[in-house]
């Protein structure tokens, strides 16, 4: 909590000190208004907070994806998956695919990256991720969809939990489900504890939305938010 507050303060100071205007943003750091819900103070950014920096391998393109390279250029959606999670992780990838389709239809395909980070890199090599993306009809050659693969599970969890603040742990055999009381499709005992969540981050690296009820959020609402951010 303290660390989070500290980071938040540093972030705010850094932004306040940034005088140049980003087209479309005006004097604000965000395109979207704060979320309606105000009684919620999670450990991860929700709106107006800097998204933590990252540098993670894209195994399909065989190159490192760095937040510093995206910042100033493009906005992004980021979510967290592992391919042996057969059920709703697929929904997350399908969601990104639907946004990808909209991006091409509406012409913002160069303004938005779609990022799906695995936190089971031991299982999820390039081949597994490609197969998974194809299953959900993602255009993997378009250049705007990327799987991100940290080198080790520890690195993945370290960033997701430690830096981003989304609770995630490795191995917890007695308790490693999604909290969904009727989905128990777990393939190995050390599956990470997983939270379905998606972040929308603007071209300045500032979090616009944390979709914590992502499975219940109408895809149309996400597309509307995305269009509001890239537009």
């Amino acid at each position, binding site marked *: 909590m303290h660390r989070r507050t500290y980071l938040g303060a540093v972030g705010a100071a850094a932004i306040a000190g940034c005088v140049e205007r980003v087209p479309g943003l005006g004097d604000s750091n965000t395109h979207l208004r704060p979320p309606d819900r105000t*009684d*919620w*103070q*999670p*450990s*991860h950014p*929700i709106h107006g907070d800097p998204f933590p920096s990252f540098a993670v391998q894209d195994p399909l393109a065989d190159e490192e994806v760095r937040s510093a390279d995206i910042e100033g250029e493009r906005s992004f959606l980021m979510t967290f998956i592992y391919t042996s999670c*057969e*059920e*709703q992780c*697929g*929904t997350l990838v*399908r*969601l990104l695919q*639907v946004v990808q389709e909209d991006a091409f239809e509406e012409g913002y395909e160069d303004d938005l990256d779609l990022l799906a980070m695995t936190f089971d890199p031991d299982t999820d090599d390039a081949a597994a991720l490609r197969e998974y993306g194809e*299953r959900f*009809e993602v255009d993997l050659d378009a250049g705007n969809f990327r799987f991100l693969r940290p080198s080790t599970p520890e690195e993945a969890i370290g960033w997701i939990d430690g830096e981003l*603040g*989304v*609770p995630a742990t490795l191995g917890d055999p007695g308790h490693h489900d*999604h*909290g*969904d*009381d*009727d*989905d128990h*499709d777990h393939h190995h005992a050390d599956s990470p504890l*997983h*939270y*379905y*969540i998606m972040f929308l981050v603007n071209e300045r690296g500032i979090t616009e939305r*944390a979709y*914590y*009820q*992502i*499975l*219940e*959020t*109408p*895809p*149309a609402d996400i*597309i509307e938010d995305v269009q509001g951010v890239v537009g």
Partner: protein
Amino acid sequence: MRRRDLIAGIAGAAVLGGGAIGALGLSGDDQPDRTQEAVALAGIEATGSTGGTLKVPIPDRPTFLDIFATTCRSCQRQMPELRAAHDRLSDEVAFVSVTPESESAVDDTTVAEWWDVYDGNWQIVRDETRQLVIHYSLATPTGVLFDADGRVHWQDTGSKTESEIVEAVRSNLPE
């Protein structure tokens, strides 16, 4: 009720931001007031289901929409429950199952075979362009209940039992 309390409890604790609550779903009065205009979707020829174009939600009839996918195991588990609920509710609501899977990925024959394996006997449609499901959820299974005017009265993701489905329909559908 316990689920609602759990959601409140988690939110109140302000710890989790994730799917632990995401999969539980909204119900009843949390649902934004929305009226769905009927959209034309392709029917799939299968047991209890005809091909051709079908308007969904069914105009002038309450409709229970089941968003499913043939690859979804929770959907498989839910099918006997859905079938039993359908047998009890078929006079009250029209059941329509909709898959967002594209025909190139899963063709009609495969869907019809799946339907027989899991003993479905009501209308199935395909929403390849997601013009309908995009307003609800791509997560499967998701149930959405519309009244005869297309107004949404209930939506929930995750597999349900027969009695949960019957209860959802009877308690949320206006007289």
